[in-house]
């Protein structure tokens, strides 16, 4: 029994990286949209928003724990993205770039740092329940609540690594921290999460 479980561990972890795999044709269409938006075509930028808005909002909601504030920060992310679009060099996918903008918007927002509420209270619970649908909604809300109680830095690293599939090197680059710090924050987040869910 032991050997079988042991054999399974590394395979699952290395395969299940959860990194977004580009859909066939997506990079090309995204590039075309970015080029059009760079020329000032707002309709193209709207399409980019439609493709990426939900991912940005998910980050903002998990970090602020407040649906109204998350909506404000999502808007700010895309407004800032529009202003900086000329500086987007295409080294990464637009989705990666705008997510990085969102991380900076969230970190730069003082209001999100003073939130004492836990996700699942107030408007946030309705938004999340809608997102989960019927299946396992209670179980997932318990997990979201536990994540929302994590310290801000640890929570952000957990979201980036375990939900978004970023690697420590990438997280270090986005947050301006050392890779070792990213690892330490992740391990702390997981430990706190385990403790919260087992209590």
């Amino acid at each position, binding site marked *: 029994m*032991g*050997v079988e*479980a*042991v054999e399974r*561990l*590394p395979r*699952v*972890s*290395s395969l*299940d990286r*959860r990194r977004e795999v580009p859909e066939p044709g997506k990079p090309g269409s995204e590039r075309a949209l970015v080029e059009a938006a760079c020329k000032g075509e*707002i309709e193209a930028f*709207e399409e980019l*928003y*439609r493709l990426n*808005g*939900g*991912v940005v*909002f*998910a980050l903002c*909601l998990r970090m602020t724990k407040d*649906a109204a504030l*998350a*909506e404000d920060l*999502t*808007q700010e992310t*895309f*407004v800032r993205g*529009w*202003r*900086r679009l000329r*500086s987007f*060099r295409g080294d990464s996918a637009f989705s990666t770039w705008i997510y*990085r903008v969102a991380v*900076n918007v969230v*970190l*730069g927002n*003082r209001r999100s*740092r003073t939130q004492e509420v836990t996700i699942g209270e107030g*408007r946030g619970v*309705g*938004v*999340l329940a*809608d*997102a*989960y649908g019927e299946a396992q909604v209670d*179980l*997932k809300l318990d*997990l*979201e609540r536990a994540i929302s109680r994590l310290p801000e830095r640890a929570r952000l690293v*957990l979201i980036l690594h*375990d939900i*978004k599939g970023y690697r420590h090197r990438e997280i270090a680059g986005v*947050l*301006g921290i050392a890779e070792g710090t990213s*690892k330490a924050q992740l391990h702390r987040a*997981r430990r706190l*999460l*385990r403790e919260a*869910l087992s209590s």
Partner: protein
Amino acid sequence: MRCEWVRDRIDDYVDGELRRSEALLVRDHFESCPECELKAARLLRLLERVAGLPHRIEPTTDLWPSIARKLERRPLALPGGRRLLAVAAALLLAVAAVVVLRGNLGRPPRSALGTSRPVTVLVPGTALAEVASAEASFGDARDRLLAVLQTRPGALQPQTVATVQKNLRVIDHAISQITAALEQDPNNVDLAHQLVASYQLEISLLERATMTPVEL
């Protein structure tokens, strides 16, 4: 093999981040220690639950109309003379703000603006392209430094943070004015120089505030 040594590495093991030699040691340990193996299995189950959370959550209302309204309100060009006056005034304010702040924040980091930062040289006819290229570096650096500023709340007095933020707004205003002017006159090298200088002021201000030198 001690359990403590293994438990310190379970996260890295599950993430596939251990060197092969260490991963094999951990795996061998599991064969003789069901407790450690159980811990790894529990962690894996937790990670599967976390990974199963939705990557996308749609806001309950459509945010696009609000975003679009703000995009349409991008900086508009003022009539010629007024526009340049506004640019000059804003830059003057920004320079004054930085000079004042230098006094408040003490010595700059070693690689801060002044002696070591390379000067961006703009060539007539390519001003806008050069600026677009510079914007990328400055934007990234600005974001990194702002994140540092926000994540070290105890390192600066609240009044200092407020002063930095106020000065950033002044410089941002100058940047938006110059950008609008450049859009009207894309090959104006003087304007492009002013824009790059404004970005440099902004980075310098943030470097001093955070005591974090950045490479551009």
